[in-house]
């Protein structure tokens, strides 16, 4: 990496960083007890980012072992930065940082890439078999995904950081089709299950086979359930749905690059402004949200971000009041502050952007059973199917796999096709309960899109079930 940084400096960069990244994936999918797909992939290369006369340039190549190619890529990055000066702009300034030399690695007890394929396939086949045994089920799918990223970062300021990140995930999905309906139940979460920064021990603890029959039974029962009615009601969301609620209506609007309109053309901006810190009421006093890159098990956990800033825990919302953004060295400098370390790139091919680390709703008190028991009339929704929110992250609508009516503290009638809609700060303002640590789990969202060219980030969210009053449900 040092060679790449020196080449960029020689070509005229005032600042340069170089990241070598090797990503490895293994993915296995079983459908109706047959192999649907089994594949492995690897990709490595180097991305070189430079500042020249206050403008950014970035170039990347897969031929990272060829010194001449690395030199020409570094020179191209500088050429790109110079071309950017065609339009006037306040020169980019970077907030201060203490360059470090360090290594960091995910804590994984059992390397998922060394566990035999036979064992993995056998687990998925058994889960699929148990789901398929439920009469009326159309499809039973089971899947495992493993991811490893090795990276080395060097900067012209002297940082030299090597990191190894390991993620493991698995899940099951049962699909029932009939009478113009397609109903799906997933476990432990939708969109390929529960993914964590961990080794294969995480898969062993998921209980995929143990939950298979229940999941399949619920999918079939949903076919004959009533549609979620259109009404305003008290709504309890389970932890996995709270993940999407936090991700879309808190995680994205607190990205400082969105606030500064750097993402306006594609993903959009934010309703938040710098002056809102310490002033804006984001939610009720029960709402406490953190962005914590040090959280064990989170997909947004690392030692250092892709600018070499140490992982941090940042209070985003405290007792309902908005406190801070997620920032980078460039955006923090605009506010005259230091970066809180959230810059990450998708692979080696892309430049780092502000990405969610682990944006979590901090736990409150009590169990889910107690919360339902405390609810006279309302609805309980579980497991996300769909998300949509406007370009400033104000008006949202989410769909879930399943809901139950709550009457006098008990779950009663099952409801299909549930969804709900709201306005971000009004919704969080209506939160009157968050379950406690015993219900709190760090979930993974491996498919967060942002940027041009499009990048995908792996983010984490700690959530517990929570209750909201006066929510509009059943949008048709």
């Amino acid at each position, binding site marked *: 990496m040092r060679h790449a940084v020196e080449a960029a400096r020689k070509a005229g960069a005032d600042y340069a960083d170089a990241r070598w990244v090797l990503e490895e994936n293994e993915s296995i*999918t079983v459908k109706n*007890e*047959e*192999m*649907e*797909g*089994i*594949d*492995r*992939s*690897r*990709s490595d290369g180097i991305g070189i980012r430079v500042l020249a006369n206050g*403008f*950014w340039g*970035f*170039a*990347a*190549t*897969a031929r990272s072992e060829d010194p001449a190619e690395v030199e020409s890529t570094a020179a*191209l*990055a500088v*050429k*790109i930065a110079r*071309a*950017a000066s*065609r*339009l*006037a702009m306040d020169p980019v300034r970077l907030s201060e940082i203490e360059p470090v030399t360090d290594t960091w690695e995910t804590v994984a007890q059992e390397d998922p890439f060394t566990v*035999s*394929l*036979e064992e993995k396939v056998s687990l998925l086949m058994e889960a699929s078999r148990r789901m398929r045994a439920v009469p009326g089920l*159309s*499809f039973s799918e089971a899947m495992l995904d493993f991811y490893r990223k090795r990276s080395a970062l060097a900067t012209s300021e002297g940082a030299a950081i090597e990191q190894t990140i390991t993620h493991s995930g698995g899940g099951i999905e049962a*699909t029932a089709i009939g009478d*113009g309906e*397609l109903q799906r139940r997933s476990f432990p979460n939708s969109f390929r299950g529960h993914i964590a920064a961990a080794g294969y021990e995480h898969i062993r603890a998921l209980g995929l086979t143990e939950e298979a029959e229940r999941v399949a039974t619920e999918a079939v029962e949903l076919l004959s359930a009533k549609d979620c009615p259109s009404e305003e009601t008290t709504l309890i969301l389970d932890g996995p749905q709270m993940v999407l609620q936090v991700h879309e209506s808190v995680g994205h609007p607190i990205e400082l690059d969105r606030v500064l*309109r*750097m993402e*306006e*053309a594609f993903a*959009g901006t934010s*309703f938040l402004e710098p002056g809102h810190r310490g002033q804006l009421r984001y939610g009720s006093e029960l709402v406490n949200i953190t962005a914590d890159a040090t959280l064990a098990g989170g997909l947004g956990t690392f030692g250092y971000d892709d600018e070499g800033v140490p992982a941090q825990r940042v209070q985003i919302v405290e007792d309902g009041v908005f406190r801070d953004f997620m920032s980078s060295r460039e955006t923090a400098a605009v506010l005259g502050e230091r970066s809180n370390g959230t810059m990450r790139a998708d692979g080696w*091919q892309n430049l780092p952007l502000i990405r969610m680390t682990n944006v979590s709703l901090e736990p409150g008190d009590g169990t889910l059973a107690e919360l339902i028991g405390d609810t006279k009339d309302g609805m309980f929704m579980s497991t996300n*199917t*769909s998300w*949509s*929110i*406007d*370009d400033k992250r*104000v*008006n949202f*609508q989410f*769909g879930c796999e399943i809901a139950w009516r709550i009457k006098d503290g008990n779950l009663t009638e099952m409801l299909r096709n549930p969804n709900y809609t709201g306005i971000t700060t009004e919704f969080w303002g209506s939160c009157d309960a968050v379950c406690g640590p015993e219900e709190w789990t760090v979930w993974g969202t491996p498919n967060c*899109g942002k*940027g*041009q*060219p*499009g990048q995908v980030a792996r983010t984490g969210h700690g959530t517990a079930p929570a209750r909201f009053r006066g929510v509009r449900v059943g*949008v*048709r």
Partner: protein
Amino acid sequence: MPEPIGADQLRGIAEAALGLAGVDGVEVLAVHDWGGLTRFADSAIHQSTAREDTAVKVRVVSRGRVGVASTNDLSKEGAAAAARSALELTQMAAPDPAFPGLAPRADVPDPADRFDEATAAATPEARAEAVATLVGTCGDGFHAAGAHETTASEVALTNSEGQFCYAATSQATVSAVVSGGEGGAGYAEEWSHRAGDLDPEAIGLRAFHKARDSQRPRDIEPGRYDVVLEAPAVATLVAFLAYLGFGGRAIAEGRSCFSGRIGEKLMSDRITIYDDALSPGTLGLPFDFEGTPKRRVDLVAEGVVIGGVHDRRSAKQESVESTGHALPPPNPHGAFPLNLFLAPGDASVEDMVRATERGLLVTRFHYSNVVHPKEATITGMTRDGTWLVEDGEVKHPVKNLRFTHSIIEALRDVEAVGSEAELASEFFFSASSVPALRVSSFQFTGASDH
């Protein structure tokens, strides 16, 4: 700038994997792609990138079992190593009785003019100049954000059945959101094989005029409105309809919104939708990622649902031939149409506005997603220019609205189809060639504050 590797060299690399001994079949997908993207915001270039990448994806078939391994080491050694890794996967995989075999040898059409050397070699300076032209169209108090991208790729598919196909393509896009003044924004985009065909000045002006004309948007109650949907908004409907409906495997398995409804007239007779990668009006490859030649597939003809697209797996399932719409393996979702067309009609947007007694003119939708897959109901927000239309005239801009509506219902209620189609994109989908539409009784279920 990188240059094409060429068919011969890619074939030579693939043959290193085809030499894998003791297996029933090997398929090698080799890709070399490069390009640059100049991204701007606040009327300045803030993120500008270039990259060159390669990929080798090897699918090995052994004793009825299938494994796939990929690497970005585009060398004979890399291909051979990926083949060995895929073989290892087959040894642990269960048999795949539905595997249809690798594509047989077949001639692939050669649509001329898909690769433009100037676009493949476009410099950051040239992209910056185009962006400067676009930004220069913004009036005082307005600022532009967007991206100008130039890319090129080579794709080669080689298999042990003797099939070999190769194509080089280029692509250029420019898109812009202009905003400012006292609130309001406008959007425009353009796609081509050739960067030289793009008109950044026209795109900038179109987005600026929309931003200028959407100042001080007013509140409006959600409800059912007749709508004039411009091409980018129509692209959202068509892309999601493809996702929910046109996959041959999804139709066969009952997952599609068209399962059990093939042959039914579900939409207005003004609606004809087809996929045609070979048309000069689209971008992309003349073969799919299994090496099957692409061909035109009629999906909806004058409102009647004709069918879906197939890869080899769903074709075998349905006892038909693959239409050449396979995605790279492994692909549990099945075939997908990447070159969609909604056939134009005979109305202009102005005609449609004039014919609207009370309704909304919509530039585009944002962050849409599925509400009910079998009814093809989706939800999303308007963005970058929405206006109230009364008595055939655009009255004033309105704040963004949330729609929740069935695409099939919308295409059933089409009153007029635009005479000019354009390539327009929907977030993560490829661009479709679509005209504007006038649709009656389109349902908006919520509102935002801007």
